[in-house]
Every structure is written in structure tokens, then in C-alpha cells.
């Protein structure tokens, strides 16, 4: 079994619902985003960049690529970052010492360091915290906790608290454009295998040799329609 995600850039409308539902379900602290959507080259969401004399506004959602050859894992001195049996790259918060070598090693800049930012918002009953409200352990390793320890690195887990129980990541259930497909890429009958079958796809930064398991189906809009 190898979990993977396909992102159909033709369907992606750039709305960032994936980023927000990810943050809401995974208790991401203020200022931390495991999942982001870029308009490459543009200064701001909703603005365009001139490509070949014409404005464009391509949308590229980016989160952990769950690389088969994960550079973050190779540089982790404590084994906090590891790859589980499904191919998901995870961080054991209890083993992470906050050295941030992984942040330097990751070419996708998707790992984020928790500089003791506030977790929630001050509100009606003191502090309100969002997110899946229980710890989640895998083989004893703390791979999710709603209250983040200070000084550790965090990132997308493919929503391990859901996928380990047969669910799919929040960004995939929550994409209003149905642009994100998740599943076992080794199973030819899986939704992701079926979706990608016969379709052109690419991975980010193939030259890095990281072998990501997030596949992008490029937009063909404007090319001979």
C-alpha cells in the first residue's frame, strides 16, 4: 500500500478551502499552514502574472509531498521523521528536538516550525482551540496532538488520524471543486489510480530526486480548446 494524492490543476479554482479545512481539522496554530495554494509569480491571491504577454493565474496547492526519498527523513538526527507502512511521512512530536535540519532539507518548504505561537483565539470562555481534539499515536509515536509542543516541526500528515482508520484527508473530502483525489496508488482499482489512468501528470521538482507521492495533473486550459 502506498498512499498518494492527485491534484487536478484544471479543476482547482484556487479557493484555498483545502488549506483552511486542513488548518481547522489539524489544530494548526496561528501563522502555521500545512497546506497552501500559490499563484506562481503573482504577488497576492486574486492577482495575475504576465506569461507570454497574457495574464495568467494558475493555482498550485502545495503541502508535504510525502516523498519516497524524503530528504527530511534522511537528515533527522533523532528519527522523529519517519515513513510509515503506507508511505506517509510523519513527525513524532515527542522525538523532534527542533533542530530544523529537515526544514533546510525540504525543497518544498512545507515544513513549519512552531515558534511558540498561540494555538487558539482568545474568546468567550478563555482560549478556544479548534481541531481534532485527541492525540493520535502510531506504534506509540505521537504523530498528532491538538496542543502542539513548542519548538517542534510540523507538517501535513495526510490526516493520519483519519487515513489510519479508513478515512481520507480533510483537504480531499473538503475540496469544493473535487480537484484532490486520495488513495492507494498501488491498487489499480483505487480512485486515484483510476483518476490518473491515461492522464498526463507531473511531480514538483523531479530533478531533486525526491520521488513525491503528490501528483499534479496539469491544466490544459487555453491550449487548443
Amino acid at each position, binding site marked *: *500500500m*502506498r498512499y*498518494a494524492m492527485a491534484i487536478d490543476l484544471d*479543476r482547482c*479554482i*484556487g*479557493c*484555498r*478551502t483545502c488549506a*483552511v*479545512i486542513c488548518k*481547522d481539522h489539524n489544530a494548526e496554530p*496561528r*501563522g502555521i499552514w500545512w497546506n497552501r495554494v500559490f499563484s*506562481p*509569480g*503573482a504577488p*497576492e*491571491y*486574486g492577482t495575475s*502574472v504576465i506569461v507570454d504577454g497574457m*495574464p*495568467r*493565474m*494558475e*493555482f498550485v496547492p502545495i503541502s508535504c509531498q510525502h516523498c*519516497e526519498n524524503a530528504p527530511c527523513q534522511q537528515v533527522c538526527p533523532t528519527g522523529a521523521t519517519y515513513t510509515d*507502512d*503506507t508511505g506517509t511521512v510523519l513527525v513524532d512530536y515527542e522525538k523532534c528536538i527542533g533542530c530544523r535540519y529537515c526544514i533546510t532539507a525540504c525543497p518544498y518548504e512545507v515544513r513549519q516550525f512552531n515558534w511558540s505561537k498561540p494555538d487558539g*483565539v*482568545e*474568546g*468567550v*470562555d478563555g482560549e478556544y482551540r479548534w*481541531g481534532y*481534539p485527541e*492525540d*493520535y499515536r502510531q*506504534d506509540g509515536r505521537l504523530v498528532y496532538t491538538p496542543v502542539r509542543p513548542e519548538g517542534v516541526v510540523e507538517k501535513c500528515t495526510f490526516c493520519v*488520524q483519519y487515513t489510519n*482508520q*479508513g478515512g481520507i484527508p*480533510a483537504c480531499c473530502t*473538503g475540496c*469544493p*471543486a*473535487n480537484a484532490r483525489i486520495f488513495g492507494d*496508488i*498501488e491498487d489499480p482499482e483505487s480512485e486515484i489510480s483510476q483518476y*490518473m*489512468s491515461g*492522464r*498526463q*501528470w507531473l511531480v514538483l*521538482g523531479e*530533478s531533486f530526486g525526491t520521488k513525491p507521492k503528490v501528483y*499534479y495533473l*496539469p491544466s490544459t*486550459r487555453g491550449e487548443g*480548446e
Partner: protein
Amino acid sequence: MSERNLSRRSFLAGTAATTAAACLGTGALPAAKALAENVDPAGEWVRTTCSPNCTGACGLKGFVHEGQIKMISQASDYPFEQYNPRGCLKGVSVNTMLYGPHRLTKPLVKNEDTGKMEETDWDTALTAAADRLKAVMDTYGPESVGVIWQVQGTGHIQKGSIIRLSNMMGWSAIGCYEMNGDLPMFWPETFGVQSEELESYCWEDSKYTMIFGSNVMVTRLPDAHFLNISRENGGKVVNFDPNYSATSEKSTEWVRLKPDTDAAFALAVAKIIIDDGLYDENFCKNFTDLPLLVDTATGKRIEAANVAGLSALPSPAYRTTYVAVNAAGAPFAVNPERLGGMEGCTLEYTGSVRLKDGTTVNAKSGFRLLRESLVGKTAQWASDTTSIPVETIERIAHECATIKPMHIIFGGAGTQWYHGDLKGRSLALIAALTGNIGQLGGGISTYVGQYKTRFIPASWFNPPRMNKHSMSFQYAVTGRTPTMQQNAFPPNGLKALVVGWGNPMDQHNVANWLRSAKESGELECLVTLDFQRTTTVDMSDVALPAPSWYEKLELTTTPLHPWVQLQQQMVDPPGEARPEIWICKELATHIDPSYADQWPVFDESQAEQVADDVLRMLLQNGGPYVNQLTAEQLREGPGKLWHANPGEKRIPFWSQIHEGTPFPSQSLPNAIDVTAPFVRSGRIQFYRDEDEFLRLEEQLPCYKPAFEDTEYAADPEARTKYPLAFITRNSTYRVHSTYVNNPFMLELQNSMPKIFMNPDDAKERGLESGDLVEAYNGRGKCQGGLVLDPGMYPGQAIFDQGWWSEYMDGDSYNSLIYPWINPTNEVYYLSGVWSPNMAWNECACNVRLLQKGGARKEVMQ
């Protein structure tokens, strides 16, 4: 990965392949072990409906843990699979606001000494509100109390309570559809209806979609994918927009045009369709007023009752029998009660008609007048006006006339101009000439606001003793006009405002009128119900805390999909917030105890049960649209509205086009007799012969440029002083001013209001990206961080509206805007249907530097 090093080139440099990845290793899912070492979180998922007036009405579910909502997901339970998942970034993070710092949890009353709002108990707050309102009612009459309750579809039980309250007190319901600028006036002018639209799942049935003034990918976010599906099905989507938008990116073709020139394009297309014989002649004859004769001397339609040898056919008083000519050139009376069977008439006629009084008048058919009006409207003229290339205009004219079904989406950015109705009339002309009206996937739609009443709500809205009034808010700002309908504004003016679920002190503070009226005392009383502590709450005399849509029972609908849904009480509202049904009943009886018999008898603890009773009553008495649905069914998930036409999807005007029923279709909750006079012929009317239309030479769809009749007429120097159009567009991060304080949304935009400009406009003013700048005119100002967008058409300053004042140094972006009233909007008055519409975009400004480099840096890098 930052945007700095993720260039488009490097992103696309990845190798493409055509088979699925071959991956390494295998492994069984350790589910049992995972479960053993983890506990399932205590709590449950509960379904509700997110409905903050964005038109989404999205079924969402929240996870309730220890009395609080911790996570939100889409419910994804719509029987029509492509509607799943429905819900956007704002809706799935509203939990951060339910318990956040702006949550209103206690009744507030203004301390007259300090001017500050202070917490108090319910009885004190209700008594204070009642005393103030009663004083205004006694002094100026009850109709001087204006009521804002957002719009209809977002709630019928709790929001229905404030309508019921207003309808018993004799207060004036402020037509929020037009106050919000959402009323597309071309609809009543052309079709006699409030507006009509395809539900979004019909978009996938369109083969050719033209979008004007609507950034669907942002403002109809949960529906937007149906345009993708249309494309995947082989359809073409063409987006007409001055600016390159997300919708432009996702369309097959983007057509750039000069702002507010859509009508010029549409008229040129109409001319090509007519000149090249591409029009649906029988459609024009059977369903439009184009065969009807007009007296060329007076500009008035000729009535059969006045023509020698003819007489009016039996019909209700709200219709008129007009005249067309048969193939032999003889006039005949056209039945206003029955459409169709007119294939034999002459569409294009010039001649004379003898009247009963013995005189003869020169007459032309509407089609002839239309052709003559289009003589100069060549593709070259349109190209000069719009900046669209001639060949593009000609190609699209042929495509949209020949590819069917063809659907036009005409959005708020198009309607919200002084001459917005002329654009809509011109575009509707294309939809009718091509015979697309009444077809699945065809026609013209407007998606602005969750205004639409989709069943009969009278059983709850109308109390036993009715005292019902309405008003147009714009007259509060402009004063009475010579051309207005007298019943459109109370004789003693707007003296008190009761606001439910609205933030007018930001959203409707046009020309700074509301704030200055409150400060001067002209607006003597402001009472607000809300679940957030908005600018309006802070400026109120009394503020009453209400539940959010996760904390009460409410019934919702939307124009965008066919599902009737409930908001359900998942959790108790925090603090002392109480359901509106209880608040409204208590406010009524605090004003006058004799109103107790106009309400069910209940105390606060029974409010949820009474809301359930009202739900059942509404369903039972709502007419065929909903009376097949049960409360139990809706508690489980969405229930589908009934529609008259065969097939799964509702088709606007199906009965008119396929059964010969005259226009208009009914605009609920109004009876047909109040809207039918808008199209007395019973047909789609492109020709309007009311005096005001004749005076302004707007009998037929035409093009008039921006600002000439407004800003430049009021101040000729505005042409040079304020050379930019101030466009206050909707943001993906807000629904009007709701969600402005959502911490996730704030992070995504660095907590900073922004002003967007074309780089050339900025350079001309010595401005650079990252500067803190100010848009201003003679009426007001607002500030923002400057963002340069090369995809913008020059000549605009765009501000993403909805920011509360506290995020803007106290400024109000609407202070720049003035509610210009177009006299054609005043020919009739029917609140929410034919009424002066707010032209937000008809606003000239300039931009200047406040602080070099003063804008904050983007937080997302």
C-alpha cells in the same frame, strides 16, 4: 515553497508521464493497532446549513466536543452527487468566530454619558429598545422605523420573526435586495419578475456560457465547479471581464473589455445576429413584444381597444391587449393571456394604423424599431467602445447564436452601475433573439444575493393584525426626488433602524450618511440583533445577542440549488444569546403588551420547540414547493423543492415557453397582480413606453457610458479630479462583512485591507507595490496596502469590500459611494422587485500615497 522560487517555469519543469506511478514497497494498514492505542474523540457530528447571505446555503456538519464545535466539514449529503462537497473556506472555519473575541454574548445598552456600549440584562435591554422605538413611532409614525433583516432565503423562522414583528408594528421593511445593490432592474423591466436563474447544476447542461460581471470562481465558490464540468463536457465558457480573474483563468476564453461597456458589446452582437439572420424568428413572434406596434409619433404602444375594427380581448386589469400585423398587413389584437401561435404575424412592420377616432397613426413594430436603433451599433463601434477586437465580436456573435443551449451569467459587478439595467436588457436581448429562454442550460441568470422567496411564507410572516410598510433606503441619503413614487419613503423620513444580521454602519454607510445621521441625532435610534460585535453593534443604542447558525433552528433556501435545508441547534449559544423568535416576541410585547396575542405563547426555554412548530407550519402552508417535505426529513438532510416543469431540474419560464402562460412568472411572496403590470403585454418586453423611458431615450436596450449622468453631471471637475473608478468587489475571504474577523481569513490576507491597481496607473502617481495608499473623492476616503495587478484594466482602484472600520483606522469604504437614483428605477415601486437599486460601482475616485512602503508584508511566504 515560497512564491519567490516557485516560478511557473520551474513548476512546469517536472517530467510528464502518462501512467500511474510505480511505487515502492507494500504494507498492510495497521488499523487495529492504531485504534487500540488511540481513543475516539468524545462527541458527534451534527448537520446544519451555512447561510450567511452568500447564496451558498451549504450543508455543513460540525463536530461537537465538550459543548463546543471543534471542526467543520461539508455534509456532502446532496442526492445530486455533483453538489458534493458543498462549502467554502469561510464556512469550514466559522467555528473560530463562534467562540472568538467578537462574539456577542450579552445584551448591550449605550451609556449616554460615555457613549460606550455596556453589558446589561435582557429586561433592561428590551425595555430600553422598546422605549426608544416607541418614542420614534409616537413622534413620526411607525413607518419611520426602518428594518433590515438581510435577505429572505437565509432564514424563514428566526429571520421570519423580525418580518412578522415588522409586519405587525407598521415599521418599514427596507428592501435589502435593492439596498445591497443586488436587484437587477433589467429583470422587472424585461420579464416582469424580481429575477430568475438556472440553479447551478444546470450549468453543466450549457454548451456555451457567457459570463458578464461575475467572478463565479470566487463569489459562487461552491457552484463554480459546474462551469468546469460544462467545459469537461465539451462546452465553452467565455468570461467577459475588464480584469483577469480566477474565473478568467478557468474559462475557455477571456474577453477583456473596458469597464461598464458590456451593453455596447451586447448591442453589436444583437445587430450581427439580426443582420445575419441568425435570430429565432418564431421565438421573437411568440414570446416577445417585438411584433407589437408602436405609434411612432408618441412612442407609445398601440392598444387594440383604440384601433378601428379591433377591441381588447378579455383579460385581467393588469394586462393590455396590444396590436400586431398579420401576413397581409392587417392589424390584429394580440392576446395578452396566451403566448404562442403567432408564427404567421409580421415581425418587421412599418406602416399606418387607423384608429376608432378616425385618425390614422404611423406605426412600426418593436422589431423594426430595434433594427433601426441598432443601425450605428456596428462591431467597429463596439470595438471602439469596449476595446474588444472586431473579429472577436463577430466570432462570438456567431458562436453564441448557433451553439445551444447558450447561457448568460450576468452578475452584480455588471448590474451595480447607474445604467446596469441597460446592460441586462441588452444581454437579455441576445438570450431571447437566440431562443434560449425556457430551455435547460439556456437563457440568462443573475446570481446576486440569497434574496429569493421559494415558497409561500405568509403563515408565519403575516401576523393576524397586519400593518405592513416598506421603504427604499436610498432616499434617506438623497432626499426625496421629483420622480419618486411617494410610497417608497415614509413622509417623516427614516428615524430609527432595527437591524437583524446586518452591519449597515460598514456595509450601507453610503456617503457617510448613516454615521453622520446617527451622530447628529437625525437617526434617533439604532437597535441591532447579531451574533458578532460588529461596527453597527458598537454604534447602536441597544444590541441584542443572537445565536449563530449552529445554535438555533432555521429554515433556508437559495436560488443556486433546489434544496430546502435546516440550520440546527448543535450547541447552546454562549453567554446569554437567545433565539430571535424569542427576542422579537419580547420586543413587541415590551413596546405594547397588547401584541402578545400576535405571537405563540412561550418562554425562552421553549423557543426551540416553538421554532419547530413554525417550521412545520411553514412547510404545511408553503404551497406545492415544500408541502411534500416534513420536518423529520429535513432534520436528516436536504429536501428538494418542487418545480412545475418535467425533468429533474427546474427551468425558468418553462411554463411561458412551453405552455403559453403569459409573463411574468410569479415573484414570491408577491401576488401576480402586483408584478404583471410591469409587462402588460404578457410578453418579454424589450420596448418600454413609460414616459420616463421615452424621455431618457431608453425605450429599447441601449448603451450609455459610466459617470456622465452621475459623477460628471454633479461635478464636471470630477472628470479630472477623480479619474479612476472605485470598485468595491467581493472578496473570497468574506461574505460582505461577515468573516472579516475570522482569524484564518485574516492570516490569509495579512490582516490588511488592500487597494488593487494596474501598474501603469500606479506609476503615473508615483506609487509602488507595498505602499500604504488612500482612495478618496469628495465624499470620503479609505486606505489599503497597494497591490499591483497587471491583469487589471487601467482606470480602476479596486477595494475588497467588507472590512469593519476597526481594521481601517475608522474609515468606511462606502463613504466614497453615493446612491445615484436612476429615474427609470422609480417608474413603479414594489420593494425588492422594482425599486431604486444601489449602484455601488458608479463611483469616481483618485488614489494617493499615505506611507511609502507602509503596507505589511505578505504573511504566507
